[in-house]
């Protein structure tokens, strides 16, 4: 962290914040690589590779055709260049699109049969792949609540899912939690109905690429009225060299159901850049609620910007049902390049979307991230709270869209985005798009503080706080509440981040 030490931090910036950012940006803890014999698909991308991936996953014809349609479309597309990120042109033919551990030639029936070396990788990362209370043996456990909680985990290693835990217990509740390749085999009707219904193959360059070559990812279906009995989580690990990871996650919360899903990701420290282009689709039907939390910690490259993951992710939630609710929470600390806009299509009347983001960019990292809240239904609500911190030579951009359709009467949006610069070699940028097409909606971008929950504000103010303090308490309290719900291995780090004060923020 030589670059960091030379920077004098101006007055007014909280020293604790600087220390926290410094520790986050310090040595990358997950940079080890595992010695796993891996088989690759041939380098490059063409129709044969797409067919090969489909065949490896044992997919039905409709899906192979779907992939091929995406591939053909992708060949006619150009990479988007509007984001405030700069990197050398990616050679999409100089990548492996499929890599799986050799031991997966015959698919293990359960986690017990998985190569112990693979399991050790996850152990080293602190990810519980045994069906245990996550309390045991996890860093920071002494601060945990006494009772402990169960978390079901899907572990995705390069292009394959190693398996999921707590299958039976979840099945008893009617919840389906498995890898997407398994879902294609076991629940084709659900996959066919929902896959691509939120992010179609025509969506954008990276989503189209993902549709053609996605290899694994998680699938969740929560039946009507079911509150998923435990947290679900997927842990993505890139291990193989020169290999992109293209996972696809599909979560469907049927009427009146609830699910909380967590996602974590790491990769070894390598000198080359590696590509990660994921697609996440969430579907929330009437009265359903999905909480989707991410702790993104891909390898960010070294201090000089050598290596690191290019993270081009399309995440979108379709609040299809009335009164449905989706909450995105993200803690972004990794990746050399981040291009990510978790979004909500608020289609159902009275549906709501929330986006809480903490993005920290250090050294030569570049992050262009934000959200889209597209209000289509009546009385829909959205709230955006984004904190961006840049240090070293990093660039951090918030890019967001709030759109109130003419028919989305009675809509509400509150957006707040703060950024903090540590040092004068980095940059913080804000690019919000606000489109209001009816007059009964109220949209506020950081202008007034009145749209934070009025009752809570009133309570705080009646206790003698001024308005600003009250808003800070309510907003931060909210974030903290969300992050406390993360599993232990995420929560310790994430909570440290939330403690970051943006006092002295630039805009």
């Amino acid at each position, binding site marked *: 962290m030589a670059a960091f030490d030379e920077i004098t931090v101006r007055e007014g910036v909280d020293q604790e914040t600087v220390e926290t950012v410094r520790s986050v940006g310090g040595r990358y803890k997950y940079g080890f690589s595992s010695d796993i014999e891996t088989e690759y698909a041939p380098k490059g991308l063409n129709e044969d590779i797409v067919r090969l991936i489909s065949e490896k996953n044992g997919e039905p014809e409709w899906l192979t055709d779907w992939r091929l349609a995406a591939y053909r479309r992708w060949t006619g597309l150009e990479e988007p260049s509007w984001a405030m990120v700069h990197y050398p042109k990616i050679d999409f033919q100089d990548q492996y699109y499929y890599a799986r551990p050799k031991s997966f030639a015959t698919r293990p029936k359960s986690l017990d049969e998985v190569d112990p070396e693979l399991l050790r990788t996850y152990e080293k990362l602190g990810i519980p792949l045994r069906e245990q209370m996550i309390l045991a043996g996890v860093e920071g456990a002494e601060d945990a609540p006494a009772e402990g909680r169960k978390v079901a985990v899907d572990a995705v290693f390069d292009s394959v899912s190693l398996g999921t835990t707590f299958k039976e217990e979840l099945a008893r509740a009617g919840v389906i939690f498995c890898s997407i390749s398994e879902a294609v085999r076991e629940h084709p009707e659900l996959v066919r109905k929902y896959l691509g219904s939120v992010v179609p193959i025509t969506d954008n360059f990276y989503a189209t690429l993902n549709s053609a070559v996605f290899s694994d990812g998680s699938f969740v279906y929560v039946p009507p009225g079911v509150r998923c009995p435990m947290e679900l989580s997927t842990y993505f690990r890139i291990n193989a060299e020169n290999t992109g990871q293209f996972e696809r996650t599909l979560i469907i919360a049927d009427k009146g159901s609830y699910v909380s899903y967590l996602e974590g990701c790491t990769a070894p420290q390598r000198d080359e850049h590696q590509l990660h282009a994921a697609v996440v689709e969430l579907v929330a039907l009437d009265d359903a609620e999905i909480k989707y939390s991410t702790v993104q910690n891909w390898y960010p490259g070294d201090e000089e910007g050598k290596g690191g993951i290019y993270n081009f992710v399309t995440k979108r939630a379709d609040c299809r049902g009335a009164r449905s609710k989706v909450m995105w929470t993200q803690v972004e600390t990794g990746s050399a390049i981040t291009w990510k806009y978790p979004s909500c299509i608020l289609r159902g009347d009275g549906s709501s979307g929330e986006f809480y983001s903490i993005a920290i960019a250090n050294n030569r990292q570049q992050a262009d991230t934000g959200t889209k809240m597209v209000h289509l239904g009546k009385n829909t609500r959205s709230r955006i709270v984004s904190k961006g911190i840049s240090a070293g030579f990093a660039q951090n951009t918030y890019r967001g869209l709030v759109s109130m359709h003419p028919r989305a009467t009675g809509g509400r949006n509150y957006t707040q985005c703060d950024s903090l610069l540590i040092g004068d070699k980095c940059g*913080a940028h804000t*690019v919000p798009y606000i*489109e209001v097409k009816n007059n009964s909606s109220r949209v506020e971008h950081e202008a007034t503080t009145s749209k934070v929950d009025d009752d809570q504000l009133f309570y705080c103010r009646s206790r003698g706080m001024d308005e600003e303090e009250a808003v800070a308490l309510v907003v931060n309290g909210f974030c903290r509440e969300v992050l406390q719900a993360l599993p232990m291995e995420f929560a310790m780090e994430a909570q440290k981040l939330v403690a970051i004060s943006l006092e002295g923020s630039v805009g």
Partner: protein
Amino acid sequence: MAVPAQKFELAAHLLAARPVPSGEAAWATAARAAAVERLTRMGAPHRRDEYFKFTDPAALVAPEAPAVSHVAPDEKAAFADSDQLRLVFVDGVFAPERSDAVALEGLEIQPLGEALRTDIHWAREVFGKLEERGQDPVHRPLAALNTAQATQGFAIRVTGVVRRPIAFVYERSADAVDAVVHHVVRLEEKADLTLIETGAAASRFSGVTEVDVADGAGFHHVRTQGRDHERLAFTAMFARLGEKSTFKSFTLTANGRLTRNEQIVEFAGAEGVAHVAGACLGDGDFHHDDTIFVTHGAPDCESRQVFKKVLRNGAVGVFQGKILVRSIAQRTDGYQISQGLLLDEDSQFLTKPELEIYADDVKCSHGSTCGAVDETALFYLTSRGIPRGEATDLLVLAFVDEAVQEIEDEGLAADVRERLAGWVARRRR
């Protein structure tokens, strides 16, 4: 994303439609050629350009100006009461017989064409130069086109404090006419000038003003864009500010089918102050776009952007504002607010309040809100016996007044307020 090929074809058409003036001084010829080259390189504006996302430029670059008849407004001309040097343009052409004699203390003023034919002239440092600086990082092809072709306008050099404002009055008489006007203004050290612009100008107007404000000088600009409903207008003002200088600009736009106002302000010296404000009242088939770009290229400067838009009957208001703070510009104080008031279900407010910051010790805030008239405030007023329509008017006027307050001259501000009151009163009839 692929750049549409028609951008370049269209640029060629636009350049061919009006000859680049000949017989000018070598420096002016070079400036014109550079502008032609710029436009050829960047192409004509297109809906797929990032900064034309909310505003379709098609009507501004169509082969013919729209043939629409001029509606004489049923109100007196703006700022007619104040003492000013009136320079009248009819359909974009200077009409000396209707103007005051060009003589003011502390001022050199000359028609643009004359200046461009003079071999040694101060304007060579300004004409096309500030416009060129303003092309990066965002292309402004319509301004380059104007630089390449404009023959009308004035070159004004201010050497002292000028008490009497200069007023450009743009009158309209013909149905279909393109007016292309370009002014260059240079304020020498500690000079001060107020520039007023009023009138409907033409069925299609292109106006570019380049303002070079030297150290310690002050430039004040107040503009009303005519109520002529069918007109189209593109304007761009490029300002470069020296140390401890002041730039203040206010624009009132009431109607007009399509108006795009760009203001590009650059702080080149420390401790400058720039306030850019605008109020717009839109009714019916109305599209109004304010695109502001403030570059803090020096430390300790203060910028404010205050934009208020009242919209009804399907009117569309656009605000694209940006504050760019370079790493040298420490202790910048940047403020930006854009607010839309939608008086009915049909209107739209589209906005993009942007920040790009590379210095760590700065304060930049940007706010944007949009909504209907506050029901609680309406209830309060009606409960005090004020009829609902009148109460709404009061709230509309209060809403836009924050922008009007940016006008320093009380007399001019009062005139603007009167016009605003007239607008709301007419709407209610």
